């Protein structure tokens, strides 16, 4: 490994607590440039989402009726929509919505799905088979259709979008965690722990769970990308977060129809933002998969 000796010395010094993880990240970035690119894109997106009030000069909800459908220029960086709202601000605030919905829905879905998968895989037997069948049933729906059905049942709001996507994610996470839990629960050290009387909670939490984390992490980044795509699709169909919430999907819906000829920027920029976000998370997931692949260790 061609490491810089000075950097290594710095990493071992008292300020190494900060330097060591950074150096580690740099090494990983060099090995996996695509994953690093993905991470960079996501990092920029997170910064844009958090700093949106600072970066956006205009209120994304304000309808400037004297400047509808302005092309991108000095006054409005990415143009305005048919209501006169500044697209640049809307896209920045849209990053907030997308990230919030994407991350939270995956977090909620993973907790539920992970718990189901852990116990189903660890305990095995008939419980496992029954749970598996139910999960197969949930996965037999096209994801959009399931999300739509749940939104019909619950009604239109950001919270319900998060719940709907979380429910869609539950069987997928459960399946991945179950696969790891199944194999770990049959190893000898778990059997030994069981033999010396470890309670089920300890077996599951201390032994099985940590070994399920790696495959799950790989899936999780793809899941966030998937969640953002579903949120955008729901918004596109008019069934996601209610207007005037700046959702990238809803912006793309508003870009079609009669405006597509006169205002192509309405269609191009939200789509680029959405694609970049999904791209970034997918690249990160690919890189994580390569790094965490046990065959390469």
């Amino acid at each position: 490994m061609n490491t810089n000796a000075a950097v290594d010395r710095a990493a071992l010094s008292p300020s190494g607590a900060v330097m060591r993880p950074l150096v580690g990240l740099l090494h990983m970035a060099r090995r996996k440039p695509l994953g690093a690119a993905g991470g960079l894109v996501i990092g920029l997106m997170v910064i844009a989402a958090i700093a949106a009030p600072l970066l956006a000069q205009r209120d994304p909800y304000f309808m400037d009726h004297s400047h509808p459908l302005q092309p991108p220029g000095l006054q409005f960086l990415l143009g305005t929509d048919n209501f006169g709202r500044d697209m640049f601000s809307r896209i920045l605030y849209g990053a907030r919505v997308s990230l919030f919905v994407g991350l939270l829905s995956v977090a909620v879905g993973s907790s539920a799905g992970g718990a189901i998968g852990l116990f189903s895989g660890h305990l095995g037997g008939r419980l496992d088979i029954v749970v598996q069948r139910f999960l197969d049933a949930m996965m037999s729906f096209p994801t959009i259709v399931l999300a739509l059905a749940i939104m019909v049942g619950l009604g239109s709001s950001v919270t319900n979008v998060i719940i709907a996507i979380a429910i869609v994610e539950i069987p997928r996470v459960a399946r991945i965690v179950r696969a790891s839990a199944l194999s770990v629960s049959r190893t000898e050290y778990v059997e030994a722990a069981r033999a010396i009387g470890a309670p089920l909670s300890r077996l599951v939490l201390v032994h099985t769970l940590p070994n399920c984390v790696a495959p799950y992490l790989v899936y999780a980044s793809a899941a966030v990308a998937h969640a953002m795509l579903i949120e955008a699709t729901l918004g596109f169909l008019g069934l996601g977060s209610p207007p005037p919430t700046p959702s990238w999907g809803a912006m793309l819906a508003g870009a079609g129809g009669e405006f597509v000829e006169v205002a192509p920027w309405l269609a191009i920029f939200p789509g680029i933002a959405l694609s970049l976000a999904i791209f970034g998370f997918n690249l990160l997931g690919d890189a994580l998969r390569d790094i965490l692949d046990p065959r390469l260790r």
Partner: protein
Amino acid sequence: MYRYIVRRLIAYVPVLIGVSLLIFVVLRVLPGDVAMVIVGQGGEGTITENALESVRAQLGLNKPLPLQYLEWLGRFVTLDLGRSLHNGEPVTALIGRSMPATMELTLLTAVMSLLIAVPLGVVSAIRQETWLDYTLRVISIAGIAAPNFWVGLLLILGLLFVFHWFPPLGYSSFVEDPASNLQKLVWPALAMGASFAAFLSRMTRSCVLEVLSQDYIRTAWSKGLRERQVVFHHALKNALLPVVTLLGVQVALLLGGAVVMEKMFAIPGLGLALVDGIHHRDYPVVQGIIVLFSMIVLTVNLLVDLTYAWLDPRIRYL
């Protein structure tokens, strides 16, 4: 082989039950008071306790839930899907009317995506680690990231600004006017197919790579066969097998994509009916179409499993 078929069929029964339970819970239990929705459509003044009670009695909503579920299930099994709340049309008629468009769109998309993905994937595999491979791989990753409705928008934009031509919307029957029918369907199929092709080309690439590393391919090379013979005659058939079966399984993705494309290009298929039904809170229509979709996906999955077992005898003993 027959024992495998029977085992598979038996395994699917609990999945079917799970699906019906899920739909029942999501569409009947979650929305709360369906009676309120129905009565409320008559306006504020008509929401009286009597009206609500009579609607509830009519729909059987005042019976215990398990009984409601069994009644609901019974109706579905006898193909009584109810009538649309919006215009009173029997849901079965609506489905029959909308199905051809969706089926054609899905089929066209599958064909187009195969036509795009397979050559790309094969080229990427046989020219592995070259600039061509890297470029194609980046394009395919980008293609997976781009949402299909955005690709559709970009396609329309491209057609508008390059050819000054807006693609026709709507749908005309294939039997009556094939030219017009294809003209209308090729654009959504292309948009959906492009994003699907990105995914398929990655699959094709990895499958071809796996096959090319096999011993019988090495034998073919050492025999002195030309690249074209080795790849097309020997490798391709074996490499495409998992890709084609995966296509069958991905019908769920195709159906989901069809929902969005039909809304965008105004194609009167099942997807558009579903979205409109949701906007109008038309529960019988939404229920019927969702059940149909899941039946299609489950049936295709079953057929793919059986085909796989027929083609690869080792699976029959799993």
